[in-house]
């Protein structure tokens, strides 16, 4: 960089762009390797399982010839490396095989259930951000006071709470006893399949259809599971916000701003908070990825027809194609969100790029 600066602006920008190019290539490479690793792991899981996939297709009483024919048809007689390459090829083409349970292609099933999970996790993240960020900022500003202690307890309890149990208790209290919210499922039984599925997210679909009754019903169903997921991400987001803010508030420019006589509000939100935005976005992306996963158990509790319910139901009926397909999809989204947050960080904060 030092030589580039002395040699004028053209060299500088070309050096910079080649560095960005290198970094992009490096990141792409690491994404590829990670995805390959993910596929290798799911492939191995599919191989080590004690159930013979051929037997489950042809049945116990099949003759030797039928068995061998089915084995060859499923490609299981080929060398293991070839099988792995075929597996990668299939996954790249969106082919996860057929589900035993639904008898449909797994990819189709996942496309159908994924929007439900996305809807839940997105709303949960929104709750987590709207409550967690202010809580973290206030805890940092009022460090050591009762508000700070309260924020700490709220976060610790969130970290320690079995989320499926919290969901169960929430259902008991707000649905069973108080009757404030809708019960399990995405909508009441009379509203199922009323609005045409466009995005698969029922809140958006009912708005598109201008069906306000369904929208109201859907909101009453999603509010509890999403706020429980939101509490989970609130715990993480508020802690991270607090520590980022503390770091900024102890910096000298904050003292300068205060000495200048700026109102405390400006100092906190216009000066300190502005500087933690990038870090915060990466944290939010990470917590979003965690929520996609954390929603698995919540979905079971609330009979939410998302990918978590799909994987678990498949699991309980030994439907390995569906389990592995679901794992790969969740894994891919997870990896992508991780990489996205990392890239974002490097993009906005040149110091992080080594």
């Amino acid at each position: 960089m030092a030589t580039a600066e002395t040699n004028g602006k053209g060299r500088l920008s070309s050096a910079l762009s080649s560095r960005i190019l290198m970094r992009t290539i490096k990141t792409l490479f690491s994404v590829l390797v990670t995805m390959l690793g993910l596929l290798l792991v799911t492939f191995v899981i599919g191989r080590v399982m004690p159930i013979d996939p051929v037997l489950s297709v042809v049945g116990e009483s099949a003759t030797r010839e039928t068995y061998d024919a089915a084995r060859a048809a499923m490609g299981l007689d080929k060398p293991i490396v070839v099988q792995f390459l075929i597996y990668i090829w299939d996954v790249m083409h969106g082919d996860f095989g057929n589900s035993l349970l639904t008898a449909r292609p797994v990819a189709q099933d996942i496309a159908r259930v994924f929007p439900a999970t996305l809807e839940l996790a997105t709303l949960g993240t929104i709750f987590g951000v709207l409550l967690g960020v202010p809580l973290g900022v206030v805890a940092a500003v009022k460090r050591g006071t009762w508000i700070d202690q309260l924020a700490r307890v709220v976060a610790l309890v969130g970290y320690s709470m079995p989320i499926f149990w919290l969901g169960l208790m929430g259902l008991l209290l707000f649905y069973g006893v108080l009757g404030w919210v809708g019960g399990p499922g995405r909508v009441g039984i009379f509203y199922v399949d009323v609005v045409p599925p466009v995005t698969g997210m029922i809140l958006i679909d009912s708005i598109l259809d201008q069906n306000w009754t369904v929208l109201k019903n859907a909101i009453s169903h999603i509010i509890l599971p999403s706020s429980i997921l939101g509490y989970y991400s609130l715990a993480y987001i508020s802690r991270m916000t607090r520590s980022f803010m503390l770091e900024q508030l102890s910096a000298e420019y904050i003292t300068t701003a205060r000495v200048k006589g700026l109102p405390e509000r400006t100092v906190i939100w216009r000066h300190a908070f502005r500087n933690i935005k990038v870090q915060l976005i990466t944290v939010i992306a990470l917590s979003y990825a965690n929520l996609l996963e954390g929603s698995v158990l919540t979905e079971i509790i609330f009979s939410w027809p998302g990918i978590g319910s799909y994987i678990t139901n498949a699991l309980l009926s030994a439907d390995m194609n569906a389990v592995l397909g679901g794992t790969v999809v969740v894994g891919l989204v997870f990896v992508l969100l991780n990489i996205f947050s990392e890239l974002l960080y490097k993009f906005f904060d040149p110091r992080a790029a080594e």
Partner: protein
Amino acid sequence: MTQQSSTQTWRQWLTTDTPRSRRQARLASAYHGWLTLRSNTLAMVGLAILLALLLIAAFAPFLAPHDPLSQDLGARLLPLWTDGHPLGTDSLGRDILSRLIYGSRITLYIVTLVALIAPIAGLLVGTIAGYTGGIVDAVLMRITDIFLAFPRLVLALAFVAALGAGIENAVLAISLTAWPPYARIARAETLTIRRSDFISAVQLQGAGPLRIITRHIWPLCISSLIVRVTLDMAGVILAAAGLGFLGLGAQPPSPEWGAMISEGRKFILDFWWVAAMPGLAIFTVSLAFNLLGDGLRDVLDPKSGSS
């Protein structure tokens, strides 16, 4: 120690500025850490809960009022504070308190196994990667990154699906998803230690890599690993309970807390305590680990203090 006890107390011996032996120096530093930890009320609460858990698990047969597995269909779904069943009974008439008490053994069993397997695996991978460097380091860290980028619960689910349900498989699945952070920590520590003067001194004395790693690097990695283990244990308990809840961990009639919630879930609206009590137990233990871990971090790793 006899000649010391006459002239100075244990406390003075432990807090002296001029330790006379290596053992005294070690004990003194441990005592100092204990004093710091003791001043942290919340950490002490966590420690107390965990000690209580340990005692409850050890003396379960003496503490439990009933056999955790014995069914009594005549006394099913009794409410809280029933005579002889302080926390009521479940759908098969089993005493919930007794099941919780015996369930603490399963929780401790899982936690102990994971706390042994995951950090040791991570320590091995991390120190080998850090000490060897070069291509070994690159490959091992790439594998670590791959596992780190996975969704943990979903991966554990898939593992258990392949291996079959059961406590040991749940432990294996959780460990398989839990080791990467330890490998990272151990590698970072190894990289700093490797270049220090005392390692060069040991090398000059002719020590081989194996001796350096096991005798000089591992002991220095331990403290940061312990902090991480304590903080991780809450997550391990929650994961194990989650697997148990899904029917993939401990199998019935085992009184595993997650599985108990799953059993109680069917009656949640009318007999809420059947599911509520085991959840409280999980929450309490996991909170205790978080509290203790927070405090330990301040003692053992002052750099990243809880500020």
